[in-house]
């Protein structure tokens, strides 16, 4: 259904087969075709708009032993979205989609909050915070459950042969129920300060959440670019059957990709719950799947699978968070955010559509010839 429209020659961003002795084109022309150009221009534009409304945007200062400023705030808030979107990038590269990440965020948050729990005890006149389980164990369990959720999606897609959107729809519906079951329909509050470090802490003056996102990005880049894995994932996205015939273990890799996406959602769940010091099975990660897909597409990865860009996704996540901050800065009601997002999605998908560009070119040419 989703992939039925993938027509040969549609892969718009693929480099056109140029004649062999191509004349060297100027550097600016090559730069204009760079896949990261448009995401970067978009980000720069939004930042410029933001800076014109909020002169303090570029202001960074050192306060209480860490960096402080609007930009740091944007990066910090974009971190969970960037992590989810990075996982989503790989899923989309295999021509799939994972709409269950929001539910997995809620499950991981609920799991961690339940296992950390925390209470205040006074030992020898000193207040001591105790967690229910050791924190590393709680975090590992939450991440393991999240990865298992992702692997379940992967098995449904690669083994049972369900369409990705439907396979993950199942977990999206049931997962939110499961998260509510874990939390008993309540908001679970965490009373264990070490847990708050993940979402609110600073390391060497930089927010821990942003460092976690950076670490995920670096690890993924190393894994995908220093090994053939990235190539395999692209091959699966371009033609799963051909990839399998060519000897790529398409099923195993697909399952791993979905499991990794689940893991990323789990990490984001930890950051989100740590940031608000509680877990809400009902509202944690709501609409996160849509934001993540948006970040991936804005970043320049095509939803038709194949080529992907991790850097683009990170920029996409930053674009979305900057957009949100800008809307707040303008002073319009934050609800308008949704309309702006809708306009951005429409614009991006039209720009990605080969038919649209052809139409625009045709119209432009006609106008030119009339003159």
């Amino acid at each position, binding site marked *: *259904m*989703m*992939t*039925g*429209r993938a*027509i040969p020659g*549609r892969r718009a961003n693929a480099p056109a087969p140029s004649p062999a002795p191509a004349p060297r084109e100027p550097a600016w022309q090559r730069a204009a075709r760079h896949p990261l150009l448009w995401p970067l221009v978009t980000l720069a534009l939004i930042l410029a708009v933001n800076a014109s409304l909020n002169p303090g945007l570029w202001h960074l200062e050192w306060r209480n032993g860490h960096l402080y400023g609007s930009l740091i705030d944007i990066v910090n808030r974009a971190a969970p979205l960037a992590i989810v979107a990075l996982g989503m990038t790989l899923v989309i590269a295999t021509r799939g*989609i994972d709409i269950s990440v929001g539910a997995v965020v809620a499950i991981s948050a609920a799991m961690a909050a339940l296992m950390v729990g925390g209470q205040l005890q006074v030992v020898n006149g000193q207040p001591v915070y105790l967690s229910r389980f050791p924190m590393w164990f709680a975090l590992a369990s939450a991440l393991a459950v999240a990865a298992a959720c992702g692997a379940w999606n992967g098995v*449904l897609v690669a083994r*049972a*042969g*369900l*369409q990705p*959107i*439907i*396979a993950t*729809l*199942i*977990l*999206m*519906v*049931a*997962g*939110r*129920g*499961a998260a*509510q*079951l874990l939390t*008993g*329909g309540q908001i679970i509050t965490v009373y264990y300060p070490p847990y708050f470090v993940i979402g609110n802490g600073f390391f060497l003056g930089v927010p821990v959440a942003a460092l976690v996102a950076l670490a995920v990005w670096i690890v993924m880049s190393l894994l995908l670019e220093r090994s053939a894995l990235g190539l395999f994932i692209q091959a699966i996205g371009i033609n*799963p059957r051909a990839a399998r015939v060519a000897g790529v273990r398409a099923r195993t890799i697909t399952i791993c990709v979905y499991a990794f996406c689940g893991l990323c959602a789990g990490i984001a769940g930890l950051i989100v719950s740590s940031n608000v010091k509680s877990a809400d*099975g009902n509202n944690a990660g709501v609409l996160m799947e*849509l934001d993540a*897909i948006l970040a991936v*597409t804005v970043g320049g990865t095509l*939803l*038709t699978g194949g080529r992907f860009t991790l850097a683009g996704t990170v920029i996409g996540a930053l674009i979305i968070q900057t957009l949100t901050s800008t809307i707040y800065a303008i002073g319009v*009601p934050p*609800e*308008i*955010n*949704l*309309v*702006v*997002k*809708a*306009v951005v*999605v*429409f614009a991006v*998908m*039209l720009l990605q*559509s*080969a*038919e*649209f560009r052809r*139409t625009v070119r045709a119209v432009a040419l006609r106008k030119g010839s009339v003159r």
Partner: protein
Amino acid sequence: MSAVLALKAPGGGLRIPPVVASVALLLAMVAYGGTMYTGFFSAQVFLNLLIDNAFLLVVAVGMTFVILAGGIDLSVGSVVALTTMVSAALVEHHHWAPAVVVPLVLAGGAVFGMLQGWLIHRFRLQPFIVTLAGMFLARGLCYLISIDSISITEPTFTTIAQARVPLGGGAAISVGALIALATFGLALFVAHGTAFGRNVYAIGGNEQSALLMGLPVGRTVVAVYALSGFCAALGGVLFTFYMLSGYGLHATGLELDAIASVVIGGTLLSGGVGLVGGTLCGVLMLGLIQTLITFDGTLSAWWTRIVIGALLLAFCLLQRLTQRSSASGIDG
């Protein structure tokens, strides 16, 4: 209906089991409820099922056409919310007559869907992403009107909302449920008795073949999304009667319930195979799960989602099995 069966089993393959399984499961659930809980077998319990799910039935019927044509429409829940919001704002704040407002919002829904269909067809965009953006847009427009809930006190709306048509034996049905049933009947006819319906099945089966056969693919695709938008707006009107308010947070996640109803009703998500009648079955099953959980009293509300997820899984796997047995293998 013979034409339907002929369409449904093109290669002589056994394509009926999903619908049969839905009906069997529905009957089994009714039987379970009847034996476990006293007072379950009353006409009113079943009428309430229709009354409480009238809007879902209408929305799911529209979704059935989209899925039969091989697409998906994620914007329906937001369009329902937008419809409640526009109706409430026009009636309460601007004192427009309901006789003007209702046709206006219905037309608005159809145009909204039509634009989505046009984008999808004209620029070969993915239905998932286009309707996702439509979902954001409609929800955002709700908040542009008002971020608060607008309750409706207009007499026509409240009268229709509270009207009950007696069916004898003390049982009664709401106007909304009657409209939903009428819509359902009309949809049955459109799907199985008109050229448009056959085109929808043909496009869902294989768009390229449909194009080569000379069917009006573009027009049908746009019309299917317009139909879904119209059904969502009609569902929104019924929802307005049901809730007597307009609110931007109304009907969140309704698109998932609608898709779930269609799938549980035995329609293949790859398009081309399914029955509108199955969707009624799916909607009733979703409602029945809630009714059973209410009757039980000890289970929490979130079990509803988990059970719906399990049912979705069961039906998707069943669909895969039947697809494999008929050796279609078209699905990429």
